[in-house]
């Protein structure tokens, strides 16, 4: 898997994190920030909140590196911390991310022709609305699957659930999105 291949130095970084090396923290952030942002966004679904949650994730990793016992890969543990932090954030939040969706649509309108953009934006809006409507436990499975193409087994390890649960949640979530796309056609 490409996630594992791209991380030859994770064990070194972990060892340095245990000594409180801030440069190791910086290296971890720079190595994983894109994936952590995508994972958090997949669960939180609000662009404005992603950076704050991501910062909280990396600070937790720095503070609680002693909780990483080395029995799993570092990125598995990191993704678990990120997914749990994002879900906790969603629990605390009561409002829906409607403003963020409107802003995303405005951003997209700058990059496509008028008719193509209108159709594309409408499809995306429907799919995103459907994703927003899913419970966080479904969103996290979907996002982890698309994030670097994690296998069912790896997703199960990150979330500490069975492979059957991963398959079931993925299937239900995707069927919901498929219904939305079908209605869109």
């Amino acid at each position, binding site marked *: 898997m490409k996630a594992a291949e791209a991380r030859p130095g994770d064990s070194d970084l972990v060892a340095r*994190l*245990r*000594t*409180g090396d*801030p440069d190791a*923290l*910086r290296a971890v*952030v*720079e190595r994983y*920030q*894109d994936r952590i*942002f*995508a994972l958090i*966004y*997949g669960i939180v679904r609000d*662009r404005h909140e*992603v*950076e704050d949650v*991501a*910062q909280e994730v*990396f*600070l937790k990793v*720095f*503070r*609680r*590196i*002693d909780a990483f016992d080395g029995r799993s890969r570092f990125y598995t543990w990191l993704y678990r911390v990120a997914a749990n932090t994002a879900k906790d954030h969603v629990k605390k939040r009561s409002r829906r991310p409607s403003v963020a969706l409107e802003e*995303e649509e405005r951003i997209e309108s700058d990059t496509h022709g008028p008719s193509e953009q209108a159709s594309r934006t409408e*499809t*995306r809006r429907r*799919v*995103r609305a459907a*994703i927003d409507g899913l419970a966080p436990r479904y969103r996290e499975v*979907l*996002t982890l*699957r*698309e*994030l670097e*193409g994690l*296998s*069912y087994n790896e997703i199960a390890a990150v979330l500490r659930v069975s492979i059957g649960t991963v*398959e079931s949640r*993925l*299937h239900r979530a*995707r*069927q919901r*999105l*498929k219904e939305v*796309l079908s209605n869109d056609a």
Partner: protein
Amino acid sequence: MPDYTDSDLWRYLDGELPAATAAVVREAAQSDPALQARLDELRTISAAVLDGAPKPTEGFSNRVVAAALLQGATPPTADVIELRRFVRRALVAAAVLAAVGLGYLALEVMPELLLGPDLQAGSDPLLESR
């Protein structure tokens, strides 16, 4: 040609089918436009999941490090980590011992609290009621 369910096709796209089965699906899709269209539709759904995810703004890693230093969020030393593990294990062991001790106390020392005076005396109210 097999009638593939969406679940089959998702497992194919996710790389979760055995290689031989995946090869059969791949060949079938090449000769069946309807199956290919179904796969394309599912790929569209996959692509939409991470669509719109924001990228970190410039200097994000520096801000995280600064926040860590400001909050004094330094991780514990190896000695402290070992001490915490020892304390955690000791607390678990103490909890187990306490539970066993309480169980012994309840059954051996104060059985009337659990079984009632009749059972303690050796009688069986269930038999007596017959």
